[in-house]
């Protein structure tokens, strides 16, 4: 579903979540506020300003890589289902209910009669069928929907997904922005025109956008959740610099800083920082097809030269933990594989491997995002560690857009990026790793895709874990991408904001946010 390069995000669905699905699912009415208490009814009105560390890369969820995009999508788009901010429970959204029939391999959704797009047109089964066509064709995330064989529309309010195999993970996948519902045939517009200013069924609609700078959203008067959103509007401001985010937050220009830079976290008042266990993982990715890192011995040497504990303490300013897997270890089903040697340090062996490799001492460029994310400091911390093993590295920070461009064109040698899961299931990270050739390293996506198929077909959590571990074992051997750390997901929330809840899976819907009276 989703992920990105500087901070990439992944989404998917969990078997554990699927089991909780829609049981007694009424819209949740309260979420926690980080500071202070305001127990009265939520006040309607007002607007909030939130930061994005980089501009969204597209309005099309099937093409989006940047995590920042997935922070905005839930405000504009709605899906058949939605998840709670902690990602553990699914709730009804555009679909008021659904029924799974494993024997018939069908998933039948009944649409909410109040579900309307922001232009007032009702959401119908034709819209769902059209949207599914877009999901399945998505180059990046189409694989998540591979179990959907066809979509039937027996009535305007009923949608039947015919599946090629029983897929218990699919409902959770359908709760993410990658499964957003769009108007049939783009509401009569061309695809290009639609993606410039899309119409969705989310709590807000786009009122203005200044490319690369800000996005203004106003309340969707036709939102399917009665009485919501509380806010009249939300303004997203692109503030790439951590220092600027802090200053704007302190001056009141920003009410919410999404993804506080770890370096700057200590500068914020503690009671205004909301943290959640992160579903992300920072990885050191390599170009396995050209240059010195095509030599697996050098890649292994680099992995062994890193002092992971020191890296976490310094490069991630102590606001992270050592990564024990390439898949986000916060995701249920992901555990450290017994044979893997991730996060092992052995400098002597690293030096030997460097000598044995074809590496001739040339300088290796390490690219990192310059506008957000924890990579810049971590990359600098890596330089002396690798130098000690005999590998010369220089750091080149790049704006996220340039970084993604270089990664996707394999115009790089080394890179530090952080990607995240958007839902508590290995489906999304596996899909992302497969779609990106294991985070752009150009290594074979085969093992990731195989594991993805196995997770789709899994009938028990142990099968999910086994599939994930098998993938980890393969990735451990190739060292195309080396997991470094699991950085904390931190947000800063002003005292006047009510209803903000930590979202470990990055994306949250702002429909329940309000301003304290």
């Amino acid at each position, binding site marked *: 579903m989703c992920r990105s390069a500087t901070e990439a995000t992944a989404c998917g669905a969990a078997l554990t979540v699927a089991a909780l699905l829609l049981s007694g699912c009424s819209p949740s009415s309260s979420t926690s506020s980080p500071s202070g208490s305001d127990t009265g009814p939520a006040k309607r009105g007002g607007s909030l300003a939130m930061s994005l560390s980089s501009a969204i890369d597209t309005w099309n969820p099937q093409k989006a890589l940047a995590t920042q995009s997935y922070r905005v999508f839930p405000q504009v788009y709605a899906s058949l289902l939605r998840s709670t901010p902690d990602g553990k429970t699914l709730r009804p959204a555009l679909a008021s209910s659904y029924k799974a029939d494993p024997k018939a391999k069908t998933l039948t959704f009944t649409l909410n009669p109040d579900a309307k797009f922001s232009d007032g047109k009702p959401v119908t089964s034709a819209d769902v069928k059209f949207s599914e066509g877009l999901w399945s064709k998505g180059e990046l995330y189409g694989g998540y929907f591979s179990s959907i064989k066809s979509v039937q529309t027996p009535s305007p309010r009923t949608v039947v997904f015919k599946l090629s195999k029983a897929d218990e993970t699919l409902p959770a996948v359908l709760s993410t922005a990658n499964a957003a519902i769009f108007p049939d045939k783009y509401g009569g517009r061309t695809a290009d025109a639609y993606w410039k200013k899309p119409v969705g069924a989310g709590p807000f609609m786009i009122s203005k956008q200044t490319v690369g700078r800000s996005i203004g959203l106003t309340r969707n008067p036709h939102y399917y959740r009665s009485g919501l959103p509380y806010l009249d509007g939300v303004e997203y401001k692109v503030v790439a*610099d*951590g*220092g600027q985010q*802090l200053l704007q937050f302190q001056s009141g220009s920003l009410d919410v800083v999404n993804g506080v*830079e770890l*370096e*700057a976290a*200590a*500068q914020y008042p503690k009671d205004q920082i909301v943290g959640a266990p992160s579903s992300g993982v920072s990885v050191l990715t390599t170009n396995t097809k050209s240059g010195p890192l095509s030599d697996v011995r050098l890649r292994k040497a680099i992995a062994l030269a890193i002092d992971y504990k*020191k*890296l976490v*303490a*310094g*490069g991630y*300013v102590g606001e992270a933990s050592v990564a024990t897997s390439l898949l986000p270890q916060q995701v249920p089903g992901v555990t450290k594989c017994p044979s893997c040697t991730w996060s092992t340090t052995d400098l002597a062996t690293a030096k030997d491997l460097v000598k044995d490799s074809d590496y001739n001492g*040339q*300088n290796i460029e390490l690219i990192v995002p*310059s506008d957000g994310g924890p990579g*810049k*400091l971590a*990359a*600098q*911390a890596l*330089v*002396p560690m690798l130098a000690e093993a005999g590998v010369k590295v*220089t*750091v*080149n*920070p790049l704006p996220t857009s340039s970084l993604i461009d270089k990664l996707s064109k394999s115009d790089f040698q080394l890179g530090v990026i952080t990607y995240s899961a958007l839902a508590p299931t290995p489906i999304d990270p596996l899909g992302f790793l497969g779609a990106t050739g294991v985070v752009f390293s150009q290594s074979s996506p085969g093992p990731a895709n195989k594991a993805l198929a196995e997770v789709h077909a899994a009938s028990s959590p142990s099968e999910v874990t086994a599939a994930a571990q098998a993938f980890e074992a393969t990735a451990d051997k190739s060292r195309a991408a080396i997991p470094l750390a699991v950085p904390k997901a931190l947000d800063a929330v002003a005292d006047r904001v009510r209803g903000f809840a930590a979202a470990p899976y990055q994306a949250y819907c702002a429909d329940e946010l309000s301003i304290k009276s």
Partner: protein
Amino acid sequence: MTATLKAGEEVPRTRQPRRRRRGDGKLAVGAVIVGLFVLAAIFAPLITSGHPADQDLLNRLAPPSQAHILGTDQLGRDEWTRLVHAIRIDLRVAALGSLIPAILGSLIGIVAGLGNHWLDAAIMRTSDIVVSLPLFVFFIALVGLLGPGTGFLFLDPGELPLIIGFTVISWVVYARLLRSEVRRVRSMDYVRAARLGGLPRWRVITWHIVPNAIGQSIVYFFVDVGLAVVAISTLSFLGVGIPIGTPEWGSMIQAGRNVIQTNWWLIAAPGAAIALIGMGLALIGDGLDDRIKS
């Protein structure tokens, strides 16, 4: 009353106390400031502890202490060590980034000042084009195009593109200065007299025109070095030029911004260094200018 000198008799010299000339004070203060920086750069390994890239990740953001007189930065690197080693980079790039365009621009200016109308016009219109380039956009584009490179001779990665950038931009000032001075000097009576006296053209130029026209360029050179230090720091602050992690004042300020409220000295120290070196160089330039004018 008149006095006549006999053959072989020397004019008696009256001993006059050395008179302070205008600009001496500024020159002295500037020279002391710049001299201290240069000495610090030369003896950097003796007055600092360790290498500027040495990290102590478990002792990050330490406050000033006896072990670390300016504390440590986000990666546990000694701030004083980085501050002093940064002088080498900043002054080296700034000096070369001013010296090369000074030589190049002066030569071009002399040619324009002495050349015919068409040559002069061609050079001046070229300089107009260069002047119209937006400085920082040009640098960002140039550095992006050339990349940091791997170093060149005694230059470290990232330094050569900056020096090239300064050369492309800064020669214009020297060329214009020299052109106008040469045109002024060449019409002076003593130059005409030298020509009429039959001195060869090259000798008139090298003995009489250039020495009397070069003064303002020398004054500007010192100011230019100071401006170059500020420009290098600004570019590094923006993430352009000197590779990240290299001890450089601008990048040190950039890195310190995220902890400005708890470790303000990480910004104050390199900021003060930039201000001091800039002031020292400006004082030297100002002092020289006063001397020339007096």
